[in-house]
């Protein structure tokens, strides 16, 4: 129970700036006596400022307009509860695929644009599973960015997980081939594969990822078992485009929202989950090994809306 509270507390801490941006004005709005078109317009601006995006905001407001008559929303003080429920239900509509590791090794492929926080996220997830006594292997398939391999090795050391790597510039597929072999031979529970950050608009680099995925599938049945897309919470509506493109090319099975410890809002997540029906798995809320939380729609929406 106390742990539960701790989690909410940390989430809130991570989201506190969102609240400042979102709740300050919301409180102002709630103070106003009646719901009118001006209020709705201001509400739209608020949602947009939280990076929820024009289209998703419009959807939420559209529903609000419809519900105005039915529910007792004529009292604007009910508005926050209403919004929290809406956002939580949008975010909670897809269940995440929880791994009790039915297959060994459980292979997870990590994707994302440059600088979104992939390598850091992998370090944290490795550590988390090491804490549960799992055997974790990391594959340094980002052979492109300068010193990406070293960065993963340092995280591996911190987390207590070995790293399979080749020289910079090597073929990522070759690294993965070796990593899969090693993971099987050493009976690893989990293989986490780091890939080079790439903008979703670069066709040839997306094609390279598809090849990487094919190599994994050829070497291990039904692998990769998870394809996690890491998103940067400071990004705006572009995250939706990123998610769309990566999903279309590779079939993303889960999302990780990194860098939620700044003033960023991560509101773009709502539109992504709603459109693509991909579950959110983790939230990154800091730079330390344990700064990773499992995602819960209720706590997220709650932390977003309750001061």
């Amino acid at each position, binding site marked *: 129970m106390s742990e539960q509270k701790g989690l909410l507390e940390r989430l809130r801490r991570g989201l506190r*700036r969102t609240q400042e*941006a979102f709740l300050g004005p919301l409180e102002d709005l709630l103070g106003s006596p009646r719901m009118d078109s001006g209020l709705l317009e201001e509400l739209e*601006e608020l949602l*947009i*400022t*939280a*990076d929820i*995006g*024009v*289209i998703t905001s419009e959807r939420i407001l559209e529903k609000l307009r419809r519900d105005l008559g039915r529910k007792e929303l004529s009292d604007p003080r009910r508005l926050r509860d209403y919004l929290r429920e809406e956002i939580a239900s949008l975010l909670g509509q897809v269940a995440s695929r929880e791994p009790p590791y039915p297959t060994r090794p459980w292979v997870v492929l990590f994707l994302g*644009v*440059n*600088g*979104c*926080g992939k390598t850091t996220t992998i370090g944290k997830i490795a550590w988390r599973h090491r804490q549960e006594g799992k055997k974790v292997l990391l594959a340094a398939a980002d052979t492109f*960015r*300068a*010193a*990406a391999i*070293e*960065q993963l*090795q*340092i*995280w591996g050391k911190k987390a207590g997980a070995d790293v399979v790597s080749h020289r*910079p510039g090597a073929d990522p597929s070759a690294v993965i081939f070796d990593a899969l072999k090693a993971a099987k031979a050493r009976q690893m529970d989990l293989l986490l594969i780091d890939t080079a950050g790439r*903008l*979703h*608009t*670069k*066709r*040839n680099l997306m094609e390279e990822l598809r090849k990487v995925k094919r190599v994994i599938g050829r070497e291990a049945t039904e692998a990769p078992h998870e394809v996690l897309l890491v998103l*940067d919470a*400071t*990004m*705006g*509506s*572009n*995250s939706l*485009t990123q998610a769309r493109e990566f999903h279309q090319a590779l079939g993303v099975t889960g999302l990780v929202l990194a*860098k939620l*410890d*700044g*003033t*960023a*809002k991560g509101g*773009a997540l709502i539109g992504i989950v709603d459109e693509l029906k991909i579950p959110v798995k983790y939230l990154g809320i800091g*730079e330390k090994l344990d700064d990773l939380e499992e995602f819960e729609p209720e706590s997220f929406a709650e932390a977003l809306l309750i001061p």
Partner: protein
Amino acid sequence: MFASLSSKLEQVFKKLRGHGRLSESNIAEALREVRLALLEADVHFLVVKSFLERVKERAVGRDVLSSLTPGQQVIKVVHEELTALMGAKAVQLSLASVPPTAIMLVGLHGSGKTTTAGKLAWLFQREGRRPLLVAADPYRPAAVDQLQALGERLQVEVHHDGTSAVEVCQNALARLRREGFDVLLADTAGRFHIDQELMEELRVIKGLLHPTEVLLVADAMTGQDAVKSASAFDAALGLTGVILTKLDGDARGGAALSIKAVTGKPIKFIGVGEKLDALEVFHPERMASRILGMGDVLTLVERMEAAIGRERAAEVEQKLREATFTLEDFKAELRQIKKMGPLDQIFSLIPGVSRLQGLPGVELEGRGLVQMEAIIDSMTVKERRNPGIIDGSRRRRIAQGSGTTVAEVNRLLKQFHQIERLMKQFLKGGKAMKMGKGMPPFPNI
């Protein structure tokens, strides 16, 4: 670049141009759509608000409504206000009157500071200066390695000695004079602007280095948070400018349009690729033209001349004008065109291109280029000079000869026709754009 914003705005303007006369309600409706397009592009909502107020004030004036081409006039107003929003003029880096110069790069995690430091070093090196890269990031695992790897590639010295970021800078400063470097480029650790301790560290480093430039490196894909972090960095450090990175993706332009407006600090460079030479001087007026789908002929000309030289550029132009540009020329140009950057980027510089629908992905990276050359090599001279004669059976033969498929041959032919068409359109310049008087002229090259 900013394609989705461009195409939305073009739709709005197309409607405006359709009206012979404009009423206030026509304009109000158009501006509502502009508002939505800007918000969708992540432009900060306060910036959107004040921008629209200014445009509206000017657009509903008597001059506009009574002019013969009111639609054009409104577009002109939007173009001018967009330019103003982004800072009107390109701003150069300022260097110390007596070298050495110190430049500090700051920003959030993953915004691209280290890569940008490498790109700036390349730029200085090309100008014949001797830069020293300083790895003032003792926190992120392998940050120093990353800068060192870039330094090795560029053959630029990298300094990383010291136990703390401040000490590293102190030592670097001592080396700077001793070893006769012209420019010190300090790559600092990524940090959140709410991290008081780390912001204080930056203040100390600034006090130490007396930099002529404190540049914020910001990701162009940043959402509404962009202005918040930029303002916070500015308040704490006094920024001198901004470098926007990752504009080679499909960033919608929010950060580009908001940061200058809110902080008053100019965008000096934009990062347009992962390679070390992919850094461009930011020209607000050209960017406004790009956003409004009017292309950016000046940048295109610069790139073309840099890639294939003035004379060859003129030759290509001549052939295009006379419609004698053949697949042979196309093949000869392939490698040169590639030097100008990714094709989609080049296309975005050509006026009116965002209006062309269904542009297939032209892939000139790696294998794609080899494949295209193989296909052209498998054609007869006659076919190359007159692609019109390439029928089904010729296509099958060409595919077999080049080890490709008929679909791939078809794709290449389609791409050739498209490039041909684009180039023709481009050469027609301003006329094809149907832009009114007062628009920036499109020079013929």
